């Protein structure tokens, strides 16, 4: 147990298939509290599926996932309770279009945690203020730019005060000029000590913000380590190949 104290997440031998397609083929991953781990790899390498498995949005086929020392993949685990402590932000924002920004943020605290409306709205407003979105609180999501929508989605996840935040390619659907404002939010969260697992194609961002980078290939973590050596001098040929393609695409 003393070992588990500083550990936010432990994944052991995680397998996941969709029909005959094996997407995750034995993932082992430990994440310490306050650590920022970036998952890189080609599309289809299993980054998103891994995040969705951690949030129990996908049932797993084999292996186990521990969050804060508790096995969340065991039988009889209260799934909704586990999810309260794990926030996830999606590539496509997935804001609720029928709710105003503030209601998007306060829905889960009010309905799941039973926070009184006034209290939830105060907390929501102060989060919006922190990320420069205060004046948008009464707008509907479709009135916002993509970057603003994604920042609201991050705030919505933060409103549940998660211990672990999962970010699934959160800038991939954004116009290039809107990427920075979203990444700035993530940087601020990282400097505030938020434990995060980030699937991303932004290598420059990964280098800046990550404590550790994991390169996924064919459903396995092929290589991992501190960003600087891994992104400049990877030991695996596949990693090198992937990074060369990324550089050719102008994303590093």
């Amino acid at each position, binding site marked *: 147990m003393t070992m588990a104290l500083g550990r936010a997440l432990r994944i052991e031998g995680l397998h996941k298939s969709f029909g005959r397609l094996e997407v995750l083929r034995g993932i082992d991953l430990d994440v310490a509290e306050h650590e920022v781990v970036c998952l890189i790899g080609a599309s289809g390498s299993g980054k998103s599926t891994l995040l969705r498995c951690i*949030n129990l*949005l996908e049932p797993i086929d084999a292996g186990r996932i521990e969050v804060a020392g508790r096995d969340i993949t065991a039988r009889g685990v209260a799934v*909704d*309770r586990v*999810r*309260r402590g*794990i*926030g*996830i932000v*999606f590539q*496509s924002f*997935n*804001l*609720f*279009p*029928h709710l105003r920004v503030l209601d998007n943020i306060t*829905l*889960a605290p009010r*309905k*799941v*945690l039973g926070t009184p409306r006034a209290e939830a709205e105060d907390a929501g407003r102060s989060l919006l203020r922190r990320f420069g979105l205060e004046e948008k609180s009464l707008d509907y999501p*479709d009135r916002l730019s993509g970057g603003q929508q994604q920042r609201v989605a991050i705030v*919505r*996840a933060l409103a*549940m005060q998660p211990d672990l935040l999962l970010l699934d390619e959160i800038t991939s659907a954004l116009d290039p000029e809107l990427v920075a404002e979203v990444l700035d939010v993530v940087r601020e969260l990282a400097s505030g000590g938020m434990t995060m697992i980030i699937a991303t194609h932004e290598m420059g961002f990964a280098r800046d913000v990550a404590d550790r980078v994991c390169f996924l290939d064919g459903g396995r973590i092929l290589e991992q380590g501190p960003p600087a050596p891994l992104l400049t001098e990877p030991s695996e040929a596949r990693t090198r190949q992937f990074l060369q393609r990324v550089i050719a695409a102008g994303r590093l």
Partner: protein
Amino acid sequence: MIGSGPADSGSIPPVAIGRRSRILPAPEDRRGIVIAIVSTVVVFSVLGYAIVSSAGWPRVQQSFFDPETFDESLPRVTAAFWVNVQLFLLAEVLVLVLGLVLAVLRSLPGAALAPIRLLATAYVDLFRALPGILVVSMLGFGIPALDIEGVPNDEFFWALVALTLLYSAYVSEVYRAGIDSIHPSQAAAARSLGLSQLQAMRFVVLPQAVRRVVPPLLNDFIGLQKDTALVSVLGVVEVFRAAQIRQAATFNNTPYVITAVIFILLTIPMARLVDWLVRREQRRASAVAR
């Protein structure tokens, strides 16, 4: 078919514009309108003349459009229509609730709930398959005949039950289409925040789904309002039964015409409302797509 005449002539101008728009752009629209008006007037005049000048017209006029019978029957027939109004207003409320429950039951995931989904599906299949007049007759005559203690034998009550059962089956399909049209990522986002299956349905999926299905829902209500005439088979003196009684008393069909006009006056505003809602939804969708 008559209506398509003007509509077709209305679609002619775009062709003409390609030919002459540089000289006279605006009058092309005006030309379309004029053609529409002229063709409408011509078609309806010809039809009207053909009917009025037919050999049997005087008899038909006397039998269906008799002013005296009209004046005599109007108060009773319209008074009986109040029964239809009560019937469809009550049924609409019940249908909205029962249809929603059925749709939600059919949308529940999980292997353990298979029997519930199966029952809901069987219900919907059954009541969509049966002709309305059959359900009304079987319930209205059958259940009171059982003579069970405490079970009402009032025809209005069973007419209401029959219409509710029939239309909740249709309406549940409308709801279900709406639920299915909400992208799964919405439910996933809600669940990821810790909302339960039912909370995600209640607070995220349903509010969006219902907004989308209001037009087809109202469309089913138009059907329901007309089908209130079916309960006349039980002897409930609603508008159609009242018209039948008047027809039998006067040997004149004018009461039927009154009934027809009442239903038309009820339905046309509803139909226009549906059109307006559909257009508004389309505008909204295109505004979001922008």
